[in-house]
């Protein structure tokens, strides 16, 4: 989604305030000055009605960020990002939003069709201008849907709202947990996010509550655009359970090339969080032009004993993916899981994996990673499993499989394993395979087309991970993987 709709609205709503902050006065310009400065941060904090501590937090992050360097250890290469050439608050609009679907890239529309997405929903995903979206809402009845969900959640005591609202309404909770898993100083992109994040989700599940439904950003996206610097904070209090779905399976029109999101999960004693992602942003054209740079920091803290955090991801989009959803296994007997399918085609570059940090006693972790590289793409699994001195009885099982389609792609596996406790047991399995011509011929001899055969073989390859996704998501994810690999054979 164009993350910027909200900021456009904000800038539109500026009147005299803008002089104070030195912004351009022409409202129709829909943009704040390029680049990042303290003034810019103060501005957005003020627009969000944030308390002083939040502003200070952002400013500290900004100061820190100025001293940091962009990481360069990942196996990806891209043109240098000029951070002062980015609009942090307004739409860096090269093209105005399409007035109707006629103006949307037909390739994207084709994909919507294949996914079976209703016309009206397509308009939302494609970012068709808001005046049309009113009608969309009516057809969708998303307002009433959202309301029903909200009431049910309220009954259960679950807080699920944009983080900007939570900062105002539940400052104590936010203050207590924000940055407690991914510190402000964590890494270049997380620090940048801390300074400029525009929105995201906030979830709090009270003690002993099993969240009555899967929480999905999908519902929220319809009411509000999320940011290119999205910030998500999920807290599962003692003995609670929540399953959270991020994203949706349709490719989203997005004019922001750089995405740097931060997601923090906190599971207290006996709590469980399942976090599932389908990421399908624009991967760039066949020559590798355009496409999203996705630099995400996702980390879960199993803070309480017996807590569980599960990351499941299906990654098919973005030109560059730099993403390592991790678990800190702090509580005794806590468990971390990471299930990943990363598909790359064209000239996509993926460097993704996880970190399992075993701190508590008898902590366990499990990593199942399936990388599929096609076209001229590069697909790297990078993972760390570590046991600290006190992590007696730590156990990990890692399985990393890579599948190559064609002769011009690359799959790479970079596991780091560190154990400082003699009782820790870590297992690592890895395979790299290719869809063989004989397999293809066998399938075709049975009547499957080349593409059907590829999809079938790939789905077999990723089955272990697909099973981890919520049912309705799994079906869509399966379709999505097939679509992403179209044209990768022959």
């Amino acid at each position, binding site marked *: 989604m164009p993350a910027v709709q909200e900021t456009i609205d904000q800038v539109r709503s500026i009147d005299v305030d803008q002089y104070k902050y030195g912004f351009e006065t022409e409202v129709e310009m829909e943009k704040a000055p390029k680049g990042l400065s303290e003034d810019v941060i103060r501005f957005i904090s003020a627009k969000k009605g944030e308390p002083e501590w939040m502003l200070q937090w952002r400013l500290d992050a900004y100061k820190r960020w100025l001293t940091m360097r962009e990481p360069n250890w990942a196996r990806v290469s891209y043109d240098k990002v000029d951070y002062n050439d980015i609009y942090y608050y307004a739409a860096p609009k090269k093209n105005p939003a399409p007035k109707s679907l006629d103006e949307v890239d037909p390739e994207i529309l084709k994909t919507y069709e294949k996914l079976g997405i209703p016309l009206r929903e397509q308009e939302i995903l494609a970012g068709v201008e808001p005046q049309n979206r009113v009608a969309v809402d009516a057809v969708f009845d998303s307002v009433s849907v959202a309301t029903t969900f909200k009431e049910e959640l309220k009954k259960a005591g679950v807080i699920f709202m944009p983080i900007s609202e939570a900062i105002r309404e539940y400052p104590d909770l936010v203050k207590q947990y924000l940055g407690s898993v991914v510190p402000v100083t964590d890494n270049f992109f997380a620090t940048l996010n801390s300074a400029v994040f525009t929105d995201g989700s906030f979830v709090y599940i009270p003690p002993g509550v099993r969240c009555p439904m899967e929480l999905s950003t999908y519902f929220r996206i319809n009411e509000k655009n999320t940011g290119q610097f999205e910030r998500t904070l999920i807290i599962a209090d003692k003995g609670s359970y929540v399953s959270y779905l991020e994203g949706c399976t349709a490719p989203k029109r997005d004019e922001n090339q750089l995405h740097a999101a931060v997601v923090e999960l906190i599971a207290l004693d006996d709590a469980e969080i399942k976090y599932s992602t389908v990421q399908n942003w624009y991967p760039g054209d066949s020559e590798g032009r355009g496409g999203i740079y996705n630099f995400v920091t996702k980390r879960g803290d199993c803070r309480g004993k017996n807590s569980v955090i599960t990351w499941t991801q299906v990654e098919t989009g973005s030109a560059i993916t730099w993403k390592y959803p991790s678990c800190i296994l702090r509580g005794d007997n806590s468990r971390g899981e990471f299930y990943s399918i990363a598909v790359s085609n064209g000239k996509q570059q993926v460097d993704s994996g996880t970190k399992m940090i075993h701190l508590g006693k008898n902590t366990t972790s499990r990593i199942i990673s399936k990388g599929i590289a096609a076209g001229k793409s590069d697909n790297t699994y990078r993972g760390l499993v570590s046991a600290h001195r006190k992590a007696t009885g730590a156990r990990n099982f890692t399985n990393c499989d890579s599948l190559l389609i064609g002769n011009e792609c690359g799959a790479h596996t970079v596991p780091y394993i560190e154990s400082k406790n003699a009782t820790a047991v870590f297992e690592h399995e890895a395979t790299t395979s290719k869809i*063989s*011509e*004989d*397999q293809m*011929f*066998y*399938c*075709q*001899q*049975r*009547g*499957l*087309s*080349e593409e*059907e055969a590829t999809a*079938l*073989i790939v*789905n*077999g*390859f*990723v*089955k*272990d991970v697909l099973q981890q996704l919520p049912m309705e998501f799994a079906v869509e994810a399966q379709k999505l993987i097939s679509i992403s690999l179209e044209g990768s054979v022959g």
Partner: protein
Amino acid sequence: MLEIKNLVVQIEDKRILNGLNLTVNNGEVAAIMGPNGSGKSTLSYVIAGKEDYEVLDGEILLDGQNVLEMEPDARAAAGIFLAFQYPLEIPGVASMTFLKAALNAQRKARGEDELTTPDFIKRVNAAATQLEIPKDMLKRALNVGFSGGEKKRMEILQMALLQPTFCILDETDSGLDIDALRIVSEGVNALRSPDRSFLVITHYQRLLNHIVPDTVHVMSAGRIVKSGGKELALELEANGYADYRESEAA
């Protein structure tokens, strides 16, 4: 009916088939025998449409239609089935899933409706029972960890389900014990019908005791060098291929 006319095929500049002629009529079971390296497996791959083989001359007509122009999946939909000598493994894909995908792909290609799941399961179960294939085998990933006999039975199960009109059995007897040979042969015999023909490729007479052919062809150096009735197989069993190897040298 399958007609092969003057088929000349090479792979990596090596001539394998040298002007092969063969006709298999509807309802006919034709056996092809011959020494190692005579081109029997190549013939089966070329009929099914495997890449890597360069067809220099000739044609293959299935009911008058030249299949050489068609992709392997189109040939399958047109009714050609190859039971592989070494069936491939498809990890993570349950046999049941594979069967359904294949059957529906063929039906779609022919413009027929896809089968409903209950209909499909009924058909699979019927075929599986006859081939003594246990249900849990259908849930396992296709051919992964299957014994030699299980793989061959799975091939025949696919044949039974897909109902092809022209079936090629490429050394289906290799790696089978006596019991498996009987089960597989019974499965094949059950599929014999006036509108379905078979090309049975084998080294040994043994299989032909179970699947009794209408015609027997001897292949050598990429050509059919002798044709006859089922008694020809017995003759070969007694005398070996020595006579035909000489003709190869000549």
